[in-house]
């Protein structure tokens, strides 16, 4: 019985993960939980006192507004970081991609395996956040369950886009700038903490071209049971579009690098 090549690539990650998954999953959960508590309870108690705020947030408590978006931001971070150091390591320090390339696997199959792995990795973290959200009365909603695949797709989109860039790198010295200049600003301005309509008009459109905002919006709409078909379709299309673009670029760059 034969196994799909991409699944065989994915398996190799499981071997590494098998050793470190417990601490890894817990640490990845820590950040969203801290934000739920710190922002949701702390900032939330201030926000919820103002009557106008409620209408801006869609007539829900701040914690309810915030929770679902954190699924998307968590996925973004996990996805992006998975495609920085670990990915360059596959070309350089450990050389696992080079090792795979010497076998019957093609670069395309290696990328497919990576996409599968990113999906798993982001999916597990998103599930963790979802479980936490389901435990809190303010954020508990069946829509959280539907938001899981949406947030996961957001993570995969970031992994694929980041990965396509990382696979052209020789050194990791610019990696921390990605986190400072791209990930952190998106985290703050991507609509997870407040509606982007609150931002100055000049900055607002930037949010619309990032996968994060679309994922945050859709996750929130789903959990608040207010997702319309039209808007949802746009959000999903954007996410899928970014994944496809990132994936294609990864395939091209992996092939160039592994079969040079």
């Amino acid at each position, binding site marked *: 019985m034969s196994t799909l090549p991409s699944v065989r690539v994915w398996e190799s990650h499981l071997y590494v993960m098998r050793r470190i998954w417990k601490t890894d999953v817990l640490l990845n959960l820590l950040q969203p939980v801290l934000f739920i508590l710190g922002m949701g309870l702390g900032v939330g108690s201030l926000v919820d006192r103002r009557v106008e705020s409620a209408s801006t947030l869609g007539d829900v408590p701040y914690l309810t507004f915030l929770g679902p978006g954190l699924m998307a931001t968590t996925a973004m971070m996990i996805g992006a970081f998975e495609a920085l150091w670990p990915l360059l390591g596959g070309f350089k320090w450990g050389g696992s991609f080079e090792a795979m390339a010497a076998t019957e696997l093609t670069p395309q199959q290696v990328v497919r395996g990576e996409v599968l792995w990113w999906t798993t990795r982001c999916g597990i973290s998103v599930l963790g956040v979802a479980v936490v959200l389901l435990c809190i009365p303010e954020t508990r909603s069946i829509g959280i369950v539907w938001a899981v695949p949406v947030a996961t797709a957001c993570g995969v989109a970031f992994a694929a886009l980041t990965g396509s860039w990382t696979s052209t790198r020789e050194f990791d010295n610019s990696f921390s700038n990605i986190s400072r200049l791209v990930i952190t600003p998106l985290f703050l301005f991507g609509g997870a903490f407040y509606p982007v309509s609150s931002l100055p008009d000049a900055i607002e459109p930037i949010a619309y071209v990032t996968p994060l905002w679309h994922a945050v919006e859709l996750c929130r709409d789903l959990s608040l049971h207010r997702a319309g078909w039209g808007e949802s379709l746009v959000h999903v299309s954007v996410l899928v579009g970014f994944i496809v673009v990132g994936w294609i670029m990864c395939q091209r760059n992996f092939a160039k690098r592994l*079969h040079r």
Partner: protein
Amino acid sequence: MIVGENLVKRFGDFEAVRGIDIRIERGESFGFLGPNGAGKSSTMRMIGCVSPVSSGSLRIFGLDPASHGAEIRARIGVVPQLDNLDTELKLIDNLVVYGRYFDIPRKECLRRSEELLDFVQLADRRNDIVETLSGGMKRRLTIARSLINQPELLLLDEPTTGLDPQARHILWDRLYRLKQQGVTLVLTTHYMDEAEQLCDRLVVMDGGRIVAEGAPRQLIVDHSSREVLELRFPAGTNADFESALADIGDRREVLPDRVLIYGHDGDELLRLVHARDLHPESALVRRSTLEDVFLRLTGRSLVE
């Protein structure tokens, strides 16, 4: 088994391999000998189907790497120049994971892995993390890993570079056994003793070209003398003795650290040197090696 005609590998403007012809038969043990940058590794990567041929033709098992790369790679084993083991994993897991890339069922992977760990004498380290191994052990593990798909052809890029003499001898022994089992070995090296030990036939490469080809012994007979006399004079004075030695032996090479005199009988050469009242700090008579062949063909030492 491998036929290459007028093979060229270009990276931008740089030509790493400049039109070489190779023909390697099944069961043969074939070597690429040359200094760093000679084009050995580029050639190996082309044969390993991870580097497209820039021009010329290459057939492995009669197949074209451009269209049948994956199919060819499924039948070869590769020991890259730098070990790319997963250092965070156990030895056994490294082998099983790699075997899975070839779609070998997990149970069978495990069976072969145990056997291979035994073969490379690492069975007692089975459950250790790779990071804890010595360089020689890692090399042996990489060789074990390259055999998991029971390859017909094994490509080894500088298999023993950086290893201590004992580790090298263990590796040579394992490779010799593989050869006896009928595995075709293709290796690169810049150690002449390694090439003499392991290769039935070899090519000497320099600057992307093949400068000589043949069996190790034959190359020595063709391009060098039977024996070599190595003389050391006080530092910096080797060149001064060149004219004084001018008519001794078949040929002379003046290197920065010693003077080499080539001839049939080294002791006789040394007697002639002494007869001229020349007194080197040290004198050594040895058999001619591939190093001498390389020196003769390129005017440079192999290991600089």
